[in-house]
């Protein structure tokens, strides 16, 4: 799924996937591990993201994740996904505040 990345000023890319075992949404961290919390995601420039993405795709089976791709975020703390879809992936279904990912360890 290759598409040209066009980032607006102040935006970066993060890598995301789903965990193989339970399907949960995860984000790629600077230490190379996948985490439930987008707050721990590594913020990448468009150029770095391409290499990181192909490495992560190669490593996916080893890391126990599926469907790796990149998503644009506003580079604030914690990073804020640009699309509603990625916001929902990051924070959980909006209709179940009790399942908010932020409240999980």
């Amino acid at each position: 799924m290759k598409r040209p990345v066009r980032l607006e000023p102040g935006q970066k890319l993060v890598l995301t996937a789903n965990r193989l075992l339970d399907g949960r949404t995860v984000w790629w961290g600077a230490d190379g591990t996948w985490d439930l919390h987008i707050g721990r995601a590594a913020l990448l420039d468009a150029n770095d993201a391409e290499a990181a993405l192909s490495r992560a795709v190669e490593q996916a089976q080893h890391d126990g994740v599926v469907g790796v791709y990149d998503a644009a975020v506003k580079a604030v703390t914690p990073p804020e996904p640009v699309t509603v879809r990625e916001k929902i992936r990051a924070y959980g279904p909006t209709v179940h505040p009790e399942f908010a990912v932020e409240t999980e360890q």
Partner: protein
Amino acid sequence: MSLPVGHYQYDRIDRDFLQARIAEFEGQVNRRLDGTLSEDEFKPLRLMNGLYLQLHAYMLRVAIPYGILDSRQLRKLGEIARRYDRDYGHFTTRQNIQFNWIRLEDTPAILRELAEVDMHAIQTSGNCIRNVTADEYAGAAADELVDPRVHAEILRQWSTLHPEFTFLPRKFKIAISGSPNDRVAARFHDIGILARPGEDGAPVFRIFVGGGLGRTPIIGEELFDSVREEHLLATLEAIVRVYNAHGRRDNIYKARIKILVQAIGVEAYREAVEAELAQMDLERYRLTPEAVAAIRSRFAVPLLEAPSDADAVLAEQRRADPIFDRWVRSNTHVHRDPGHIIATISLKPAGGIPGDATSAQIGRLADLADAYSFGEIRITHLQNVVLGHVRKDRLRDLWLGLAEVGLAEANIGLIGDIVACPGLDYCALANARSIPIAQKLGARFADTALQAEIGALRINISGCINACGHHHAGHIGLLGVDKRGEEFFQLTVGGRAENGAAIGMILGAALPEDETVDAIARLVDCYLGRREGGETFLDTLTRLGHEPFREAAYETV
């Protein structure tokens, strides 16, 4: 063990098959986990077993053949929700149930638990013949001509693991009804079947083909008016064969049977089916009265006994309690037995999530089914639950029991009875969230007196063009669209799935999410202000046309 009321009793062959299938899938899961199978290899295998990957987790779709469950099965679904999910399940427009927070590694264990109660997730996905849906009032409604469940079961057996139809060009959905009042959306299915009694006592079948929603909504066309029972399977086999041979496989958006029927015309399709029938060994497919009787004998018949004053007791209770009376008005249907009544339990509490039920509610529904309706439960394609055979003099006790678990909402067929797909809160294909809009609308029109005043009005919401929420068939339809990552909704009016099926007309440009509820409220006000006599929303719309509604929806303050 006594026979279940309402659905077919499995035998040894069914059960052995399920166990073998689970063992096979468990092997596939293990090979996926150890890396022997790649995700690309595994995906079609898991889909064949009803396991999807959504935004936050795996989703398991469990088949409920023709929407009918017994209490032991429903209780098991509640236990699965509690043990393996987050304490709730979601009933769908295909009369199935979905669990939204499933772990891949738990799936074989869940399938084993389901098999304990003769349930599975097979053919709930993939390009095969999917779960056959049937009239939710089957075998109970006063207006029914033929009980469609026996034939629905025959279709289930015919289509399950049908070797020729495992890799169709696209998925294939069949619905069957035996009532002159279409409650299955027969004309929005790949094949829709309406049964009625034939001259010799055996039923005959009117068959529609090529209906569907999704990207290209099309109303099914009549292929045959009167197929005899003995030729039902041969005819269906021939219809699906023609599709299998000529349906497009090069373009997923043009692969459904509806596109083929439109491309060649229904006459040419009929000729192709007749040509196929002419060279088939009809003897092999003949559905004999004995075969039908054998299937029928595996369904228990409920013993419908009621005291002679049951009707009078109910009438008195309604007089004494207007709140109960309002619920009876909207949530019941006439039973073929004068001492009984059909109760529809709304899974649409004001401000709630359409079709969701907690494990506690699911467990209570199973108990109430045991107490009031022969342990039988039906799931409707409008995401509600039906108890089919309730004694009239006990209806109020049932209602009180429902109220204890928040299931006594009086809104069936009214504006609060909203159908919505999971949308962007769960679904990987979505453009917009369907559930929050449904919740806001539900809250806006929460007042049951107001709902009764508005009358018959169905809202359907889909989060994308795949139309799982049947928005094209809604009296008011909402379709989620994505504009630069933001949620918008396109409004349609005038759709209907009942008799006189129609596809809703688009009112105008899509509205931002936060303006949509107000626009619908203005639409409804426009109807209330201009309706005459006892008109429903659809009546007023038909009389006035779309323009006043368009103006109301887009009016800005």
